[in-house]
């Protein structure tokens, strides 16, 4: 006779509210970037940098506001998410500021645009907006299950966001990838926000449809093959992500959305066949597009043989891609195990997008393998906390949403770090929190906000179990 195993609950033993732990970690997370700032200043100018106090206070203020809001409105939430995000954001600010000091990058900027403006102050402003977004999510979203009502609206919104860069006049072609829109002087990357909205749609949709997708299937060679009509959604998402790839020339975004869908499909249905099918479809799609679209082709060439393609490059675009890739690899290589020290590397030789797409190369050179590992672990911990939240969540929608968001986050790290290190072809995505870019920072703070909201609901203490029922007599209902 089968034993009932479907009633598993997972809960932590400790006291549920860990706000003081969070505060202590947050203080640590603010102190580290200040130390890094000092480090950079001493290495470059030989004196304590002038902006250190203001910078440290700014970061501490943002972290403090975020902490107070969490303490008030999400008291049982996870204690690690906020400090981890704050540390990554703070380190990103330091690295961007460090690249602002580089004479090489200033010279390049003067030559190309006849002007140079430091990026660190605007990144500080974006961080403030990001924290405001985080606070806004916590204040407005009292219960994440509300989002379930907007399942199909989310689908429409995310499709609109994804297609916005293709609208003539609004979209902007920045160095080959059409993932930007220009609104009143600001460049916005709608894909970053589409990631959040799409996760809401996927969780709402899969929560309703997962039984049909999981149970109505035939077994074939150890895999559950779904019925033809259930293939509809995965084929649609695949087609949409391929369209993004073809029309927006952005491998990263399309990989992110398709991957997120496959992850959530797997989590919802527990069928390995979806992963197998998803991988096959992704490889097939990428192979076709990679051999036809020229922008993607140059990235692939730079990935396969960066040094060789410097000589065989056929056009300027491909030459640039190969040049970047070689510089990045040299940068990681010269960092070695312990790195050259903050402010003492030559990662500014990557003349283009050094502080956005390639910021991880600066980490690799100046902090070495030891530093790269720390950053990957920090990201890994954020993902772990997200998945932990999904495990602890009591409602299926919250489970899927937390899983989808942390899966997308993990996938983004993989795509960016893997691209920069030469594991996969380079894509134009940003390292969350670390890289320069307003949309990325703001959207990722919103993501952390949603995760904190779900984890607050999930970790709220359950009512205490009642004493043994056999101790009392059965009472008789008296009419």
């Amino acid at each position, binding site marked *: 006779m*089968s034993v009932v195993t479907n009633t598993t609950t997972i809960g932590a033993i400790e006291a549920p509210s860990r706000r003081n732990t969070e505060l202590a970690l947050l203080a640590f997370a603010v102190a580290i970037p200040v130390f890094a700032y000092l480090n950079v200043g001493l290495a470059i100018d030989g004196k304590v940098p002038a902006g250190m106090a203001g910078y440290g206070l700014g970061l501490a203020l943002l972290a403090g506001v975020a902490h107070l809001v969490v303490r008030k409105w999400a008291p049982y939430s996870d204690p690690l998410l906020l400090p981890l995000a704050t540390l990554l954001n703070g380190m990103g600010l330091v690295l961007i500021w460090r690249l602002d000091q580089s004479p090489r990058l200033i010279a390049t900027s003067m030559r190309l645009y006849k002007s140079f403006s430091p990026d660190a102050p605007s990144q500080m402003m974006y961080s403030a907006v990001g924290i405001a977004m985080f606070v806004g999510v916590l204040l407005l979203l009292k219960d994440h299950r509300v989002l379930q009502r907007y399942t199909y609206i989310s689908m429409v919104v995310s499709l609109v966001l994804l297609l916005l860069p293709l609208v003539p006049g609004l979209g902007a072609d920045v160095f080959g990838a059409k993932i930007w829109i220009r609104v009143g002087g600001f460049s916005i990357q709608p894909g970053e926000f589409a990631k959040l909205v799409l996760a809401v749609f996927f969780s709402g949709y899969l929560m309703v449809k997962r039984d049909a997708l999981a149970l109505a299937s035939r077994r074939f060679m150890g895999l559950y093959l779904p019925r033809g009509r259930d293939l509809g959604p995965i084929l649609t998402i695949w087609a949409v992500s391929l369209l993004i790839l073809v029309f927006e020339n952005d491998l990263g975004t399309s990989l992110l959305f398709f991957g997120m869908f496959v992850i959530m499909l797997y989590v919802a249905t527990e069928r390995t066949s979806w992963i197998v099918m998803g991988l096959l479809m992704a490889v097939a799609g990428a192979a076709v597009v990679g051999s036809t679209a020229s922008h993607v082709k140059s990235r692939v060439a730079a990935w396969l043989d960066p040094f060789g393609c410097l000589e065989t490059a056929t056009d300027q675009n491909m030459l640039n891609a190969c040049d970047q890739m070689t510089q990045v690899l040299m940068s990681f290589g010269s960092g070695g195990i312990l790195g050259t020290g903050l402010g003492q590397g030559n990662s500014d030789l990557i003349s283009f997008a050094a502080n956005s797409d390639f910021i991880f190369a600066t980490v690799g050179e100046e902090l070495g393998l030891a530093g790269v590992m720390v950053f990957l672990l920090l990201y890994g911990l954020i993902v772990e906390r997200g998945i932990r939240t999904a495990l602890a969540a009591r409602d299926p929608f919250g489970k899927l949403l937390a899983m989808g968001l942390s899966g997308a986050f993990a996938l983004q790290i993989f795509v960016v770090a893997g691209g920069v290190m030469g594991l996969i072809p380079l894509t134009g995505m940003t390292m969350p929190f670390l890289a320069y870019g307003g949309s990325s920072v703001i959207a990722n703070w919103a993501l952390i906000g949603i995760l904190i909201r779900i984890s607050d609901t999930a970790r709220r203490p359950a009512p205490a179990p009642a004493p043994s029922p056999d101790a009392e007599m059965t009472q008789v209902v008296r009419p």
Partner: protein
Amino acid sequence: MSELTLTVMRLGFLAVLWLFVIVAVQVIRSDLFGTRVTQRGSRRQDARPQQNTRQQAAAPPQQRGQQPPAGGRQRRGAPTKLVVSEGTLTGTTVALQGQTITLGRAHDSTIVLDDDYASSRHARIYPDRDGQWIVEDLGSTNGTYLDRTRLTTATPIPLGAPIRIGKTVIELRK
């Protein structure tokens, strides 16, 4: 700035970064080692065999040969789980896999009811030869109600119909 100072700062910074990671992992140590996994069914595993032999003697013989149907090949429209929708156990679900489910305050019940108005062996739910799920009152003090009617004989359960035992309401769902 001297070379030595910079080297010390460089290594010190890496040490501080690693320290943060270690502290962060310490904070979630309880997740790795202190997790409490509660399996509500497993505690009563040892009590099962006797219970089953007793039931097989009394209950219709078809239960013995019936294997739990695999998840993917269930009859269309058949319920797949039992859900507690009211009472202290609200939200508990039990997968229906051809097994008999006993309800009551006794510790060896499949669903242990924490309810003063329930008897220790209150009711049971089992599938008949066709896979139709049946609820039967086991001579309880306060009775078992299907919708509004008190059960007197074994009765088939329509999908989604509330079965009330004391303050607890359960129903079968797809």
